């Protein structure tokens, strides 16, 4: 399971647009890189990423190896109720990653 770091404001007012940043530890292998002994490193990149807020999808991305290693994504969402932000992603090796953060709405 991949490591990730999420940055959201500590609290938000209802209706406020908040910035969400997530940094995922992932090599995002392009498939064009070779080991020192000449073996090709197979492509392995996160291709799908979803963020759900209180169970409802609020952001989705399809990515490619054209996204730099340790992908960072920054996007916005409108604060409604206090609730969980659930992040989910999947790479070419079918490895799933998840992360969670709580958005406190005052």
């Amino acid at each position, binding site marked *: 399971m991949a490591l990730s770091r999420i940055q959201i404001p500590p609290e938000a007012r209802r209706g406020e*647009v*908040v910035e969400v940043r997530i940094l995922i530890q992932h090599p*995002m292998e*392009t498939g*064009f*890189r070779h080991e020192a002994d000449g073996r090709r490193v197979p492509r392995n990149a996160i291709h799908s990423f979803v963020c759900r*807020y209180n169970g*409802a999808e*609020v*952001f*989705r*991305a*399809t*990515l*490619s*190896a*054209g*996204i*730099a*290693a340790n*992908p*960072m*994504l*920054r*996007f*916005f*969402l*409108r604060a*409604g109720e206090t609730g969980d932000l659930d992040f989910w992603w999947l790479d070419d090796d079918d490895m799933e990653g998840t992360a969670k953060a709580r958005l406190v709405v005052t």
Partner: protein
Amino acid sequence: MNRRRFVALAVLAVPARAFGQANAHVSTTDPLVFSLTKGKNVYPGRVKLELPKIAENGHSVAMSVRVESAMTAAEHVRAVHLISEKNPVRELASFWLGPHSGRAEVASRIRLNGSQRMLAIAELSDGSFWSDAVDIEVQEAACTDGG
């Protein structure tokens, strides 16, 4: 047509020109663009793609894309597509947004395989497409040599 009528028509024609030529940034025969737009016109404007002018290397380049939109249920950005001219995988990323986004802005860090023109296409809730294109000089390419 007399001279006076010609001048009047010419003045009327100006705003239409200022609106921007459809498909100014995109090739309508590009199969990748076609797969996204289904042949609809892609207008320049409303989208702002931000990239540095020069990148020392293409392994990690800061990218942000912003679309002018009220982001309400009636009028919002549905998707933003990022297309590279020279990368081995040209369809770099797609982001799906909606009224719950509040602001149509997405940022990430991308790999670039050499100097090229990057293209961002936004799909709006009314079904229209808008675009921005940015030239970037990459001094050391990513993807095909190492990293």
